[in-house]
Structure formats: C-alpha cells, structure tokens
C-alpha cells in the first residue's frame, strides 16, 4: 500500500466509523480542531484502527502524530516493520 492509498484508507475510516463529513476532511485538516472536532474517545478508535490495519502501535505517543491524516500516515510510514 503506497502513501496515498494509506491516507485514503484512513479518510474512509474517519468517514465511516467516526462520522466525519468527507467534504470538509482533507489530508491536512486538523482533526481535533473546531472544524472536525474529534475527541479523546475518537483517538482510542484511531489507535485501534491503526494497530489492526497497519500493525503500528500509537499507544502513548502523545498528541503530535494525531494532528491530521498526513501526520498519522507519516507516523505509520516511519514505524511500520
């Protein structure tokens, strides 16, 4: 899976599982800002999804990798086995 496919898979997850409106969700949109408005419960869902689908643990990594789809994909890319 290339980087673009990974980001599209993440976007699909945000839309289907977390109820995010795809028309306002770009790869660089802040996920926890006013526009998308995700919260700490959603962050656990993200951790679980990334672990199950990409085999990368994001438990306890702090807030920075969760800023956007771009930063999550970059984290996965740099941590996958």
């Amino acid at each position, binding site marked *: 899976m290339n980087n673009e496919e990974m980001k599209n898979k993440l976007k699909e997850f945000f839309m289907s599982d977390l109820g995010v409106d795809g028309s306002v969700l770009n790869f660089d949109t802040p996920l926890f800002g006013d526009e998308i408005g995700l919260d700490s419960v959603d962050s656990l*869902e993200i951790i*679980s999804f990334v672990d199950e689908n990409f085999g990368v643990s994001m438990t306890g990594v702090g807030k920075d990798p969760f800023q956007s789809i771009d930063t999550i994909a970059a984290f996965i890319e740099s941590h996958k086995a």
Partner: protein
Amino acid sequence: MMNIYEISEKIAQRPPFQMIEKVTELVPNESAVGIKNVCVNEPYFMGHFPGTPIMPGVLICEACAQLCSLVIEKKPEDLDDKLYVLLKIDGFKFVKPVIPGDQLEIAVNKTKGGGVIVGFDCVVKVNGNLHAKGSLTFTTVPKESLGK
C-alpha cells in the same frame, strides 16, 4: 454455559444491578448468549413508570454490557490495576418495549478490538422477536486514575 453463581465470580456488579442471570453460550473473546428475566419487583419499575412498567433502555444497554464483560477474557496482569469501562454506545434501537415477565435473550458478538478498545454488536430478543439492538465499545482505565 454459566449459572448465576459462576457469573458472580466473573463480574463485580451485584443486585439490584446484576443484569445477566444465565449464560447459555460462551466463546471467550468472541461471543455469548445470555438470559435476563425481567421481574415486576425490580426497583426501577416503581418510577419507570408508575402503573406502566417499562424497562429503561439504558438498563437494556447495561445488560448487554454485562454480557460483553463476561466474553472479554481479562489479562492476568490487568486484573488488579485495570478496569474495563463502557466507552461508546452506538446506534442503539429499542424496537419494542420490554415489560415485566419478558425473558431477554441477549446475543453479543465481538466486532473489533483486542488492543485498546473492544467492540461488540448486541441483539436483544424476547420470544424470538427483536426488541433492541446496537453496538457497545469498551476500553480499560487504570484504577488509580479514577476520580483524578
């Protein structure tokens, strides 16, 4: 198959907040079918509602949650310092009222998890007819963090 004595060894809830009385099928970490008998003597029927007893939907969710907790095999290292708690209730529908005399047959199936969260689809039937369904998600929290 578990009776009430075996269930009480596995979960912390107690009457009047014990909502699963028998487990008829159990596949650890996968699925279960459990029974709750709904009795007119249950204390919440005094107020919900006077003269018109209907089991509150939130308590149907709680019955499902208790059955889910019986499915989850706790890791030995987590037993002392971590607690499984309800994280999300998604898409619950209460299709028909549950009233005293009904026997809830609750089926729960794990849909995701094993890591930080565990999710289940839940179906509640009475006499084979659907009365409620929805999804529940759980996570663990360190006991020492509670109330802080």
